[in-house]
């Protein structure tokens, strides 16, 4: 164990892993970039689930558990980022833990409780280390439950129809098919780890954390940026916190607001358009999250936040309802 979670030693011990441990730089770069690639795969998986309507009944439990895993992964990744204890770690931890102070009545008591002191200090980093170690086991358990819930009904298919007519065994067919993806993943991963290991990070995190110096801009890792943008778009602290957590919980309403009689967007032109606009809007939010809070971006951030929420609450139900009508009209025409 070369890492030490004491706040005085954390940054130095990470640098010692980078310099003095055999292949320590490789392990650290894989760990850091691995988090980013975990999120890349997760976002692709979620996008696929939204596009193909995988969340629809009878697989609501699978989807709900997936959203829980998404949030647990975010917590794990955030705490891991804090453990390096660079400037961005310290100030990221300060900003995010401070969010809980927006809670009515108990907010100002909860923040020192999380910190274990009166600022982000040694107890904070020590307990983040314990949690960063613990949460992956929770995640692994959730993954198993995700599988168990999935295997009750089996995977859905892009056609939105049941796949129970022509099945192939997992072994040989799908193992070898997935192996291709595994190697593609490893190739792209190697490109980052060996040739561009710090591109996805922030240069300020190579400066040791210092509570006396605030960095010019406090930016989280890229995978948190869309939610960070929604947090900042709100003029009020409580509103911002609610927007951020609401944005994650919004995913849970999809099975309810999707009124479609058919699963998936394969045969739905309007749903496709609104889905791709949603993806574009999500990436726009990601970009806004790393820009300075300035005049054009503030309004843009608010509009993008409104669009994000209206996708779940308005666009999905209205568009799927209209498409249902089109399907019925088409069917009745054929019957004539």
């Amino acid at each position, binding site marked *: 164990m070369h890492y030490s979670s004491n706040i005085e030693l954390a940054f130095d011990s990470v640098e010692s892993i980078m310099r003095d441990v055999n292949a320590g730089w490789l392990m650290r770069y894989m760990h850091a970039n691995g988090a980013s690639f975990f999120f890349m795969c997760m976002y692709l998986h979620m996008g696929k689930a939204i596009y193909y309507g995988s969340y629809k009944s009878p697989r609501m439990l699978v989807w709900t558990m997936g959203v829980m895993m998404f949030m647990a992964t975010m917590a794990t990744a955030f705490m891991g980022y804090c453990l390096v204890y660079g400037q961005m770690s310290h100030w990221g931890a300060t900003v995010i833990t401070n969010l809980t102070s927006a809670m009515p009545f108990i907010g100002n008591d909860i923040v020192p409780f999380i910190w274990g002191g009166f600022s982000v200090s040694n107890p904070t980093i020590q307990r983040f280390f314990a949690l960063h170690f613990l949460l992956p086991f929770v995640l692994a358990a959730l993954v198993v439950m995700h599988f168990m819930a999935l295997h009750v009904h089996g995977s859905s298919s892009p056609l939105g129809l049941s796949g129970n007519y022509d099945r192939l065994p997992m072994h040989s067919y799908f193992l*070898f*098919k997935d192996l291709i993806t595994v*190697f593609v993943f*490893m190739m792209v991963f190697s490109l980052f780890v*060996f040739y561009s290991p710090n591109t996805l990070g922030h*240069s300020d995190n190579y400066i040791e954390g210092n509570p006396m110096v605030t960095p010019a801009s406090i930016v989280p890792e890229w995978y948190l940026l869309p939610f960070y943008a929604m947090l900042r778009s709100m003029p009020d602290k409580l509103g911002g916190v609610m927007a951020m957590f609401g944005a994650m919980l919004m995913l849970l309403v999809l099975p309810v607001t999707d009124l479609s009689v058919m699963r998936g967007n394969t045969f739905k032109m309007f749903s496709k358009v609104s889905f791709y606009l949603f993806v574009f809007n999500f990436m726009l939010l990601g970009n806004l999250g790393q820009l300075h809070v300035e*005049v*054009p971006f503030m309004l843009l951030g608010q509009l993008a936040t409104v669009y994000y929420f209206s996708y779940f609450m308005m666009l999905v139900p209205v568009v799927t309802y209209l498409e249902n009508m089109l399907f019925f009209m088409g069917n009745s025409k*054929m019957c004539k």
Partner: protein
Amino acid sequence: MFKSSARLASPWAQRAMATTAATVGLGASYVLYQDSMTANAMTASEHGLHPPAYGWSHNGMFETFDHASIRRGFQVYREVCAACHSLDRIAWRNLVGVSHTASEAKAMAEELEYDDEPDDEGNPRKRPGKLADYIPGPYPNEQAARAGNQGALPPDLSLIVKARHGGCDYLFALLTGYPEEPPAGVVLPPGSNYNPYFPGGAIAMGRVLFDDLVEYEDGTPATTSQMAKDVTTFLNWAAEPEHDDRKKWGLKALIITSSLFLLSVWVKKFKWQPIKNRKIVWNPPRK
């Protein structure tokens, strides 16, 4: 069910709709992109001028550091930068086999005195340096460093290349970017110098590199830009001592993974061949 919807839109209308959608989408993206390029409330001087991209000899997937440059850069660090900046994470042993031989590094370490174990009566002792000792900084603590520099703290240089936006390019641009005089109208706080590459423009460090400030062992002319290039290469090595190995291992990883990728494509095709070529016949039952 799907036939009827296909009949509603003729191929021509479909194409027109797709073109319109694509044009609108691309146009909107372009406008938004342009907007994000221009709409800055913060001025360029507050962000610092962006450094140009220089052609470092270690740029590229297969390129190692230029070790002669590392050695010259260490000389520049030792004779110029070390007056104010520490290099805490580099030990003498790190130089061995990179820019110096073991005996050279040992000789440099032995010139210095380090704290030894106290003697039997508890009196502090000194001993000559060893290879395992770290390169000492110019100041005993932060207060001394600030006092020696009009309140400004010279940062430690061990990680400076990784800890600044732009890395090597920024460092080189900063070291060589001091103009003779600040532009008209620029008001600098006392004790600071003008450098357009530094965020805000006012930097406590003055220009330090002048032609022929050091004399290189290998006879390389010590121009300002030569010294800036060498010291930047040295500091990049100090920030990423694993750099040469990293690129070599990466090459190995890419060769192995890409050949396994090609193999896996072949295996998948081999396994799926019967499935992809099967013919399903349905004989309707007779009434």
